[in-house]
């Protein structure tokens, strides 16, 4: 039977394939020089990424002193302290709202922008270049600029709103918890739009034009073209960009730290700013390690999804 024969052939083929480590070893011996060139990068990767990561994981399960040195390994006390921390429920919900809120808003704004920039009109090149400005500026400088724009007494925003007659008394954008949170989400969105728009634009430009021609011949109108052809074609790039943006938003330290330092009263903190505070402001390094570990696990989940999507794209 055909199926049986295929099954046997497949099993035999599998038996012949050497184990992964043997193939890696063969791969390395076949390309010694190429791998030699990679050695400095690998050393840096181990020293700057893997070693600190291992230390963080070990630290999460250890007692630590005021400069973060491990004094006793083998405890879950840091996680218990984290659970007992009265600020943690707020930090978790703020992290979720910040990450998903900013990514959803960025998608909603970037996609139409990419659609517009995908059209041909005078000055489109200039618009595309201008779009990159927020991305080109260092985040800390952008955040500092926005901090002053939002300043209650001296900020440009209040001045503008006042001149337009929209407000008659100053608004302290960064001192009110809800407004401050909105402001940091806004700046996160503002700084993320360029990358996402460019990615969407690249995706739009990779759609073969002939499918639109064919659709037109079948009598499709613009809405049908967009809904039935553009959207499905953009599905994979959207998934990848969204996953990447979620991972980046989770790690968004610079904007929040520069604008509010998590103030007022930890209400604009997300997990990465709070773990920094735990470690370096409150000197609870163990607790900071535990939160870093928890954040790492969440990011790992998103990263695994990301690589799965990437793999399905490759296959």
């Amino acid at each position, binding site marked *: 039977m055909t199926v049986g024969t295929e099954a046997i052939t497949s099993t035999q083929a599998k038996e012949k394939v050497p184990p*992964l480590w043997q*193939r890696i070893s063969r791969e390395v011996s076949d390309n010694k020089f190429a791998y030699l060139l990679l050695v400095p990068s690998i050393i840096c990767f181990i020293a700057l990424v893997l070693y600190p990561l291992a230390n963080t994981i070990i630290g999460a399960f250890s007692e630590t002193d005021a400069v973060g040195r491990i*004094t006793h390994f083998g405890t879950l006390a840091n996680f218990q302290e984290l659970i007992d921390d009265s600020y943690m429920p707020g930090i978790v919900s703020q992290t979720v709202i910040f990450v998903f809120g900013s990514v959803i808003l960025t998608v909603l704004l970037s996609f139409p922008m990419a659609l517009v920039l995908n059209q041909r009109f005078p000055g489109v090149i200039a618009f595309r270049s201008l779009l990159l400005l927020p991305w080109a500026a260092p985040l800390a400088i952008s955040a500092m600029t926005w901090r002053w724009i939002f300043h209650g007494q001296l900020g440009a925003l209040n001045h503008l709103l006042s001149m337009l007659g929209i407000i008659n008394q100053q608004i302290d954008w960064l001192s009110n918890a809800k407004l401050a949170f909105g402001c940091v989400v806004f700046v996160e969105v503002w700084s993320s739009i360029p990358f996402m728009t460019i990615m969407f634009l690249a995706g739009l430009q990779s759609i073969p034009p002939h499918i639109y021609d064919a659709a037109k011949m079948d009598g499709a109108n613009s809405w049908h073209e967009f809904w039935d052809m553009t959207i499905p074609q953009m599905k994979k790039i959207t998934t990848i960009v969204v996953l990447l943006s979620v991972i980046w938003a*989770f790690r968004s330290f610079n904007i929040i730290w520069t604008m509010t*330092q998590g103030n*007022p009263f930890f209400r604009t903190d997300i997990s990465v700013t709070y773990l920094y505070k735990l470690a370096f402001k409150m000197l609870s390094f163990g607790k900071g390690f535990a939160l870093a570990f928890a954040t*790492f696990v969440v990011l790992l989940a998103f990263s695994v999804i990301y690589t799965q999507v990437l793999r399905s794209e*490759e296959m």
Partner: protein
Amino acid sequence: MADKGSDRSLKMSRREMLRLTALTGLGLVAAGCVVPTPPPAPEAEAPAAEAPAGEKVSVRLMVMDYDENMKPDTQAVIDAFNASQDEIEATLDVVSWGQGHDLLVTQISGGQPPDLCNVSAQWQGEWEGIDEVMPLDDYVSEEFLSNFVPSMVAAFTNKDGQLMGMPYFLDPRIMYYRTDLFEEAGLTAPTTWDDVIAAGQALHSPPDMTGYGQTFSMKSDGLDYWWYAWFGAVGADGDLSVWTEDGHSKFNTPEAIKATQYVVDLTQKYQITNTDYTTAGRDEELQPLFYAGKLAQLITGSWFPTLIANNAPDMAYGLEMPPVAEAGMTPATGVWPDSVIMFKQTKNPEAAGQLLEFMFNAENRLAFAKQRGVIPERIDVGTSPEYAVSDTEKFMVASLDTAHNVYETPWPATYYKTFVEVETLIGRAVAGEISAEEAMLQSAEFVDKANGL
């Protein structure tokens, strides 16, 4: 022998390559949530290093910058020290205050702290708590110490009688107010809380003028704007320590609640303060607001006249001690002193001691006080006609009579953690989220619990 080119099964498939790439990517993602981690604590102190014959002993001094001239000014001291002898080679690192703490934590835990460093006394306590600070008694003489303000030397002496740091300078906190505006409005100088409120009510007119500046954003010295109210509530005749004899905090006492109620009322009841009190930094926002001419009253440090002279040389302002709760009380102030400490990991304590004495000689300290506009910790410098020439400088020196070291604590190891929580609770009270009494009762409970009481 298999043909390398044709045997694809021996090559890594795209899937495997992708898997390895993904693993690498995951590592990079992981790097984003890593707290800088140090190696395990050293089990034994490093022995003193002996320089080979003919070679100089190295000593590294790290200083946090107070202003843009800190590097050249301190380098001049280091150069003079190196020129004064030929056995020790001193080197200098200058870092910003913003980076200093994290950098030192990393260096201490990595076994590479400087030999000497100027630090916030708060940091000193923190590292003393983990036995990283070298007692100085063996490296500075009694005669040398007799030149310093005794209360400040005492402030850096631990309960075992060991001197753990040298007071670097003193920074008494003073009320600065706009004399031109006060005169125009017929107001009296703000010496009591009622004076502050009356002046605030008369002058507060945002966004052009704010009556009184305060902040609870954890961006300046720990809890400073509450401390000023505490000084006023207790007065110089009372006990300014926030600790009882048995180590409990005094945050739940009537005086502490009264101090908190005062800072709450300034914002909530009288509405005479800046409204960004939950986020404003003293140095970043309040001080610039004052010399921009938009703030009528501000309590800040003894460095402020230098900043005013640089940024608003024509501004008319007066000085008063932090206001007291009621007329007739004796005003008090406090210092958040910085100190110079020697790390226990130093390999050359004797050489570091020599550099320490050189740095603290009268000539260098006079130059430092003039350069930074700070109050000298040496008695002879503070009383020198070369130093105290202006009324402002004389006022600052005189204020030291009632100055309390706010870092004085029986709990150096938990100071940071507990004061962050107390400032948060007081800030919430000022924002109207909880009452002053609730804030202070919760503060006392939190602090005592954190200290195991």
